[in-house]
């Protein structure tokens, strides 16, 4: 890694102002992410994780700072990264297939070509037979899959996932985590992943960035050196447990500082 990063977030600060009162949602945060990494961002509720993603996705502009994709500034520009928001946000009036191709449709591809690209993914990643169902007919896990496929199919090199599995039960969650790791291995994307869940962060990531609350700012970066492919056994290894202890301590510090939670 000769100092070249896929995505660089440099000294980003985001201030919201309401009734003359300034509120710092994110303060002087920098992340440097090499290509192909699986990076998790972990931190208590309200520490600016979604804000950071909104900045990277170009939905809002930082008050200060830069966002570089392949060395090029992309501040305020939409469409460079695939972004899965905190909710699945499947459009209820569209079938699963129509939802999955939404991103391609917006890009302006031909309908048949979009479908031809989507169907193999849908089949391979466990939604076969549900192409023509509407979202309200699917289980939570399946909806999440569809939303993820929509994000993946958008074919950006970087994918932002904001707590994609937050609403799922433990068992479905583990299944989805393995599923996501499969996709990541197959498609070689760079993934940024927000979560509250320490286990999830360790299990999935190469790097974990820990944010501190109010104002949200980068606290530490932890590198996870657990071998891949990982499985349930990984969670029992000594390294894993040490990492978990370390993260727990870090987050516990935060809670001690911040009684609002």
């Amino acid at each position, binding site marked *: 890694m000769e100092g070249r990063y896929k995505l660089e977030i440099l000294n980003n600060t985001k201030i919201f102002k309401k009734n003359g009162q300034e509120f710092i949602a994110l303060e002087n945060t920098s992340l440097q992410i090499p290509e192909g990494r699986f990076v998790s961002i972990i931190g208590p509720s309200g520490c600016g994780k979604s804000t950071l993603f909104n900045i990277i*996705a*170009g*939905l809002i502009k930082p008050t200060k700072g830069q966002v570089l994709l392949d060395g090029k500034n992309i501040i305020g520009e*939409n*469409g*460079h*990264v695939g*972004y899965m*928001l*905190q*909710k699945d*946000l499947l*459009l*209820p*009036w*569209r079938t699963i297939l129509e939802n999955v191709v*939404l*991103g391609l*449709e*917006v*890009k302006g591809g031909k309908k048949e070509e979009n479908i031809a690209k989507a169907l193999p993914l849908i089949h391979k990643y466990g939604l076969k037979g549900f192409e023509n169902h*509407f*979202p*309200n007919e699917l289980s939570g896990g399946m909806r999440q899959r569809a939303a993820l496929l929509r994000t993946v199919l*958008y074919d950006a090199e970087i994918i932002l996932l904001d707590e994609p599995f937050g609403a799922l039960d433990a068992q479905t969650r583990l299944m989805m985590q393995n599923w996501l790791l499969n996709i990541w291995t197959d498609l070689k994307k760079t993934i940024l992943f927000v979560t509250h869940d320490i286990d999830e962060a360790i299990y999935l990531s190469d790097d974990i960035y820990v944010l501190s609350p109010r104002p949200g700012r980068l606290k530490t970066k932890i590198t996870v050196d657990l071998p891949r492919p990982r499985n349930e056994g990984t969670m029992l290894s000594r390294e894993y447990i040490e990492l978990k202890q370390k993260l727990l301590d870090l987050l516990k510090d935060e809670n001690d500082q911040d009684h609002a939670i």
Partner: protein
Amino acid sequence: MKQKTGVIGTESVVLNSSVVDDSITIEVLDEEVLRKKERKKIAFGQVSFGALFIILWEVLTRIGILDSYYWSSPTTILQTGWVALTQGTLLIDLGYTSVATIIGFILGTFIGAGLGLSFWWSPFYSKIMEPYLVAFNSVPKLALAPVLVILLGIGFTSKVTLAFLMVVIVTALAAYSGVKAIDPDMEKLLYSLGAKKRQVFVKVVIPSSMPWIISSLKINIALALAGAIVGEFIASKYGVGRMILYAGQIMDTNLVWVGVVALSLLSIVMYLVTIYVEKFLSKGMNVNR
């Protein structure tokens, strides 16, 4: 009755007479079949009630409890109606009224929906317009009928315009409610995919507001009909409204009743068609989310 033995947690042991196995099998009934049966019963009830009402009306006027000069009677209405249909202008009048209603309804629905949806483009413009829309909605538009007839003449245009006015604001407000209820995160999603404002409008705003627009259709068809009829009341050469007015002037109560019944039938037909259109659209939009 099932009797419990002393053993906690077992329920299937019965000390009763000779029966050993008390497990009961409940027949699984097809919900769809049950619903169909239920629907048949309801339809039968509805028709019987209507028939009963008509028979009662006939009998009461025959035996003189109701004065048949004012109340006419079903058979007389049928006879008079037949004459009006075959020798009079009832058919033309019906056509005139329905076409005015339908054109006003369609124009009002589309323009109203367009107006309501256009508010999405600029919150500034929509905030300025909203109070006027609400104010105009509460103006009794039918009271404007004489002005409109003077302005637009006694012809077809004034009827369509009245029907249109009855519909357009209601639809605009309905569509605007739909716009206000859009999940902002859905817009965000589209923008994150690099969508232009126009694409967000087509892919999120219109489909998301559709249920609101659709739900205003049923009321609108009745409003449009009322508009057209009042237009005909004020001054017109054709139309069921004009026919009723004329019959009243020559004291032909039977003919008045024919007009009333014809209008009722017309509005029922239009209502049914609207329900069908609604169902069709709702299915296409997967509205029952």
